[in-house]
């Protein structure tokens, strides 16, 4: 445990040193005045833009708007992906038909759904939610399918022997057995939907971080662009580290899988 804590400590130290150095280099480059300040702002400019957008409340309202859409889209993707994935993992003929379609759709960038969504739903939040859904549903259903497939046959037989019904099999064997793969899929799906959301908001939206980026571009506000991009990364990292990281660690520990 002690060794682990020490390793953790030095990792944090290295990371802090790296980011401080990065900002220092940035400051030096700015000081050399190679590019116009309107195209390459200083760290202080970005910090000021971040503070003023935070103080005006626009940063907060944009973040919550984005996260709200993400939550709806991602929850839908979770439900659809889980259902499709279990169906594909359990029944061969569904895997050969629907499964191949899902796999094929992975090569389609989710933002390519926006024109279609705009025609179906109009330029509404529903269209954005749809893009978020399409962005992550195939990743989630693919990992759900793989999760079902990797359950050892003997674990199914053991439940069968006790006379488990089809529903009991799903409830007591399939769902818990697929969880490690599912958590990985959700983590991946979440990062896909976050990116899809930003792309969709950038093209059309009246609120959200993507919209704020667009506003920064329209107003030629380079410090704001830097600040918002930083926030998008920070939110993404925070959810990855605070939600999916611990969930994955817990599942790995509980299921007795080797620490990767």
């Amino acid at each position, binding site marked *: 445990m002690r060794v682990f804590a020490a390793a953790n400590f030095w990792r944090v130290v290295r990371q802090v040193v790296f980011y401080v150095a990065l900002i220092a280099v940035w400051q030096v480059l700015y000081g050399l005045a190679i590019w116009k300040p309107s195209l390459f702002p200083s760290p202080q400019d970005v910090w000021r833009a971040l503070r003023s957008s935070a103080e005006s409340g626009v940063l907060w309202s944009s973040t919550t708007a984005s996260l709200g859409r993400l939550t709806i889209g991602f929850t839908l993707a979770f439900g659809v992906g889980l259902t499709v994935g279990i169906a594909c993992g359990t029944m061969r003929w569904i895997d050969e038909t629907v499964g191949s379609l899902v796999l094929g759709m992975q090569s389609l960038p989710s933002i390519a759904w926006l024109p279609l969504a705009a025609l179906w739903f109009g330029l509404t939040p529903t269209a954005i939610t749809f893009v978020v859904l399409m962005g992550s549903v195939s990743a989630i259903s693919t990992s759900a399918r793989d999760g079902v497939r990797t359950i050892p046959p003997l674990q199914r037989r053991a439940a069968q*022997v006790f006379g488990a019904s089809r529903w009991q099999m799903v409830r007591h064997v399939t769902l818990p057995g697929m969880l490690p793969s599912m958590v990985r899929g959700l983590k991946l799906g979440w990062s896909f939907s976050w990116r899809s959301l930003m792309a969709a908001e950038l093209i059309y939206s009246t609120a959200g971080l993507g919209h704020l980026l667009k506003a920064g571009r329209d107003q030629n506000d380079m410090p704001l662009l830097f600040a918002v991009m930083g926030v998008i990364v920070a939110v993404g990292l925070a959810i990855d580290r605070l939600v999916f990281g611990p969930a994955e660690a817990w599942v790995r520990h509980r299921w007795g899988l080797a620490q990767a």
Partner: protein
Amino acid sequence: MLALRSKRDNPPALVMAPSAPLLVMRGVSRRFHTSRHDTMAVRDLDIEINEGEFVCVVGPSGCGKSTLLDLVAGLDHPTKGEILFDGRPLRRPGSERVVVFQDAALYPWLNVRANVEFGLRIKGVRGRERDTIVDRYLELVNLTEFERAFVHELSGGMKQRVQLARALAVEPRMLLMDEPFAALDAQTRDVLQEELQQIWLRTGATILFITHNVREAALLADRVLVMTPGPGRIKAEIAVPLQRPRNPDTHGVVDFAAEIRRELQHDEYAGKASGSGYVI
């Protein structure tokens, strides 16, 4: 109900009225069709097992032992013949016939206690009743102090004890054991064989035990069925009327093991001579 019946001091044949056997297989065959050829896994099996009996099936790998077990478990169905359990045709798996597998049949996301509970959950036993039963069987297999441990923290022998407790907890009429100790090291196997004898004496379970270890069969069984491959048939039936509990090193057990081995070897030569394979 085989719930910890009082210690058995008479052989079951004397206790049981000569009523119908618990399991009856009549002319049972199972043929597998594949794209390349048909395989007769077992042919014309006639087996009867009485309540409270400990029957071992011995044979080389590929002789159809696992097919036989699947048929009795209800996981598979015969292509010919009939199987009666307690006088009724056997159609599907159920908690009156439970299998202890060779390995990897526990659920890694459940701790020891929850694994033992599993069958009862499926059966719909709840609350205090379930807790009491689980406590009893955890104690029977000496795992009470490990009830919170996870499967990956257990040794191979402990895993098999959990499987045994899980199977016994639903109080099956018949326990099916599919080479349960084959993957264990020799010391652990000795300990578990000893424990299984004790559990059998205490519970009066009816056990169908599959193994390829002749010593194990001589040690545990009332009756040994010797199976031969290509297709699987019962070649010989050897009663083992030794007193219990038995010790694997006593003359009686060693002699019976030798007799079983002779039956097996004899068949091996015969099989080679006639060139019989699995393909029909």
